[in-house]
Every structure is written in structure tokens, then in C-alpha cells.
């Protein structure tokens, strides 16, 4: 189910603003790759190009290739909707649908794409909620609004919702930045389980988190203020945090800037 992502010479623009410059990287199946770097360096922007969410913003576009097991996501005739069915996303702020129950939130991706079988949907909902370690907490109130949960529960609900459609890849954009340490821990444990089935790419500002959850880490930085962001280095997480190749990486992870 999990697939390999290859990014080739990716340049990303917001209208006339060149946001990210020539990114080259590969993400292996069933691994967790962390994107780290200072604010504004383009790591979230790169993440959003991996499922064509970037172009939702008016004026935004990119050049280059993003290959999912060899298939170019930006190729001719590719439907962004089909791309997003295969590459799911969890956002910084939990965003359950307020007009839907907990159960309907989890199965929204299937239900709104035409799956009607109630029994099958119930099974998917239970499986996804168990997978997100949320089942025991919500099994008695599946018909309540998703907005009635706590922040950490809402974020796990969103993860359950993203995994319920069984994507090949799961993108996570700072999924823990609005959560307390206990909820963060729950989600980090969850990421460790998720990588058995999915390819996971996670953007984080928390370097301990990157060190804890990821197999490989990519460090992004701005060349200089006003210049486009770029990928400085991608390597095994151990190596990035113990013996990085680039000086800039070492400066960043040791807290000398950023």
C-alpha cells in the first residue's frame, strides 16, 4: 500500500514570489520522513505540493516533478482529486467537520465518494478510530459532534479520518503544534504504528519530535532573507542529529540560529 515519493527539481511559486527552489528528495515506502527548518523556509509548502494542496491557494503553482511510484502527480491529465485520494493530509489545526458526527467525520472520505453500505462504513470507522487510538474514548458517543472532543482527540479524529480512506502516503503538517505534551505523545506513538502501513511525511518545528519519530530528516533553510527556501540536507535522522554534513544543519539543530 505504501508508495515511494521522488521529488525532482521542484520549484514552487506564489504568484510572482519564488518560495522554494529546486528541491530533490526521495521518500522510501513505510518510513517516516521529517521536514525541519526555521519558519518561512518552505517546508510546509513542499509538503503541500506532494498532494497538490498547494494549488488550492489562488496564484500558487510549481514546476518540476513529484513521482509517486514513478507516476508524475503533475503530469498531463492527472486529476488532483485522484492524487489526494492517494496522498492524505493531516493539518496543523484539528479541523473536524462541525456539521457531522464523530462517526460521519471518520468515514466522510468514503461516504462523500459514494460508499453507501452502512455496515461497511461502521467497520471502517471502528478500524480507523482504533488505529488512531481513539476508539475507547469515543465508542459511546459516535453520534456526537466532532467539535465536542478535546483538541488532542480532535487531532486523532482527523488522523482517523485521513487513514480511513487508506491512502498510500500520509502527510502531516505540524500535527502536534497545538497540542499538550500528553496528546503529542499519543500522536507520536500513533505515527510509529502508522508507518507499518503508510509512507509518512511530517513537518515539525520540534526537533526532539523529529528525532523521536522519523527515520530520515530533511533540513530546509532560506539561503538568505528574501531568497527562496531550499533543501539543505536530507539524511538518516541519526546522522542529521549527530553528524550532519552541512554546517548550516549543525548550527540549526544545536540551536545556534533559527
Amino acid at each position, binding site marked *: 500500500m505504501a508508495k515511494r515519493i521522488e521529488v525532482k527539481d521542484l520549484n514552487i511559486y506564489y504568484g510572482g514570489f519564488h518560495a522554494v527552489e529546486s528541491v530533490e528528495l526521495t521518500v522510501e515506502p513505510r518510513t517516516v520522513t521529517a521536514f525541519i527548518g526555521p519558519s518561512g523556509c518552505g517546508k510546509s509548502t513542499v509538503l503541500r505540493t506532494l498532494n497538490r494542496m498547494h494549488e488550492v491557494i489562488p496564484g500558487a503553482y510549481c514546476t518540476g516533478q513529484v513521482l509517486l511510484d514513478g507516476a508524475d502527480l503533475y503530469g498531463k491529465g492527472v486529476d488532483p482529486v485522484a492524487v489526494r485520494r492517494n496522498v492524505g493530509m493531516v493539518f496543523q489545526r484539528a479541523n473536524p467537520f462541525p456539521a*457531522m458526527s464523530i462517526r460521519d467525520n471518520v468515514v466522510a472520505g468514503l461516504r*462523500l465518494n459514494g460508499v453507501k453500505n452502512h455496515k461497511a462504513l461502521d467497520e471502517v470507522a471502528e478500524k480507523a478510530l482504533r488505529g488512531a487510538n481513539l476508539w475507547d474514548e469515543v465508542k459511546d458517543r459516535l453520534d456526537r459532534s466532532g467539535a465536542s472532543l478535546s483538541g488532542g482527540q480532535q487531532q486523532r479524529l482527523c488522523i482517523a479520518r485521513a487513514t480511513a480512506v487508506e491512502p498510500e502516503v500520509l502527510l502531516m503538517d505540524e500535527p502536534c503544534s497545538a497540542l499538550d505534551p500528553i496528546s503529542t505523545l499519543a500522536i507520536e506513538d500513533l505515527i510509529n504504528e502508522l508507518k507499518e502501513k503508510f509512507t509518512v511525511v511530517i513537518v515539525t518545528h520540534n526537533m526532539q519530535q523529529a528525532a523521536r519519530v522519523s527515520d530520515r530528516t530533511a533540513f530546509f533553510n532560506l539561503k538568505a532573507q528574501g531568497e527562496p527556501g531550499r533543501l539543505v540536507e536530507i539524511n538518516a535522522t541519526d546522522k542529521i542529529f549527530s553528524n550532519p554534513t552541512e554546517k548550516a544543519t549543525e548550527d540549526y539543530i544545536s540551536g545556534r540560529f533559527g
Partner: protein
Amino acid sequence: MTSTSTTSPAADAVEHELDLTRPSGSRTARNGCASAFMVFATLLAVIPLVWVLWSAISKGIGSLLSASWWTSAMDSADQAKWGALHAIVGTIEIGVITSVISIPIALLTAIYLVEYARGKKIARVISFAVDVLTGVPSIVAALFIFALVVTTLGGHQSAWAASLALVILMVPTVLRSTEEMLKLVPDSLREASFALGIPKWKTIVSVVLPTSISGIITGIVLGLARVMGETAPLIVLLQFNQYFTVNPNTPTFATLPTIISNAYTQGSADTPTVWGAALTLIILVMGLNIIAKAISRRYLRRMGK
């Protein structure tokens, strides 16, 4: 406190008595004056409101309490047996026709402006046009439809024509309120839906609209309440009718506002029938407002959760 300072500031401060008594004199007087003026202004604003309501109730309740009010038109030789059934049905019928035409136009335009054309030049142009339309006086809308339907197209006065004039008045208000409600739906919900591989139209139908539906309905009901009481289009585009009809294609068609305007032109404005029509109209519009309030309260509760 810095480490260089060795004495505490309190020790250096000049001792003085703590005075907590209310200052007498000009401040208290000004406060009293301002309060009195505010209460006076409030009373001034409320008096006409209560007075109008009281007049309508005291002079109109008699008509409403007689059974014939709700069951007959004004076609009896005996004025005591007159009712307003034809006008009530007429007002509601015109409201329904107006809504059926206005609501789809307003909703689809608002969806287009917010979901498809946001930030584009065309959206700004249309928004500006809607703002201008919102301020169009009802008599202008009535004249426009009269010129179009009667003069240019050679048609005649009818409830259809009156409804079209009311559509011109209702679309901008419903459009504007729907637009605001759709803008209140956070983009994060749209993105969450896109990220699940849900197509855009389905996102709008199944995520955006259900999230804002109560607010949209509130806007529709308030827009309807507004046009239900409009009189100018009905005077220009309809002739008064004493008899019961539901045919929207006849030039003679009764409504509650035109009971009043018709009586006035005949020099008998201050009668129980006229006040009865006024009270019925107030009840109708107030009922719509109460419905809108109830829906929006439910909406706020859900968004606040």
C-alpha cells in the same frame, strides 16, 4: 526591580491618605445628566414603537377575532362579514413566488462568488453591483418591472410582475447574507475535505453548506420578511381586488399592504378592516423574524461548541 536599587520605592514615597470616597460635584452631576438623557432618548425611541403596535392591536384585534376574517374576502354586501382571506393568501402567494425565484439565484450566485470566483476581478465587480442593488428603493424596482413587462413587452399588471419587482429587492439581501455566511466557513474545512479526495462540488454540498445552513436560512427568512411588507411594487403592479383569487396572472389581486393603500385612496383609512390588515401583516412579518431568530440561535450554539 534591579539589583542596584537597595531601598524599596515605598520607603521613599511620600505618605498620603487613601481616599476612596465618591467625588462630589461636577463629575457626579454630569454622570446623572448623561444617564437621564440616555433613558429619555431610549423612551423616545420606544414610544412610537409601542404606540404603533398598540394602535394596530387595539384597533385591529376585533377584525382578527371574527371568524369571517380568516374565511372570506371582501365581496359581501354586509361590511361586517368582510374578511382578509384573499389578501392573506395573496401576500403569502407573492412571498412564495418571490422566494422560489430569488432563493436559487441568490444561493447559486453567492456560491459562485465565494467558492469559485474569490479574489477574481469579476467577483469584485459583481459584489459592487450587489451593493448598489441593495440600496435600490422599492418604487424604482416597481417602475423598472412596469416599464419592462407592461410598456416594453406589452404585458399587463399581475402578481407575477409584482413578484419580479420583489425578486429585485430580495436577491441582493439574501445574496449578501449568504455570501457572508459562506465566508465564515473556515478554509481549513475545505482543505480537510479536498485532502480526503472529495471533489470540490461535493465539498461545497456536503461540507460547506451544512456548516453554514442555519445562517443561510436565517438570511433567507429575513430577506423574505423584508419584501413581504413592501407596498410600492404592489401598488404599481397590481390593482386592488375585493374578491378571492389565487390566479397570479390577473391584474386584480389583493394583498395585505394594498388593503391599506386602497382604503386610503378611497378616504376610509381608519377602519377596523384596515387595522386588521395592518395587524395581520405585522404578525406575519414578526412570525418570520421569530423563526429567523430561533434558527440563528441554534446556529450560534453549534458554532460556539
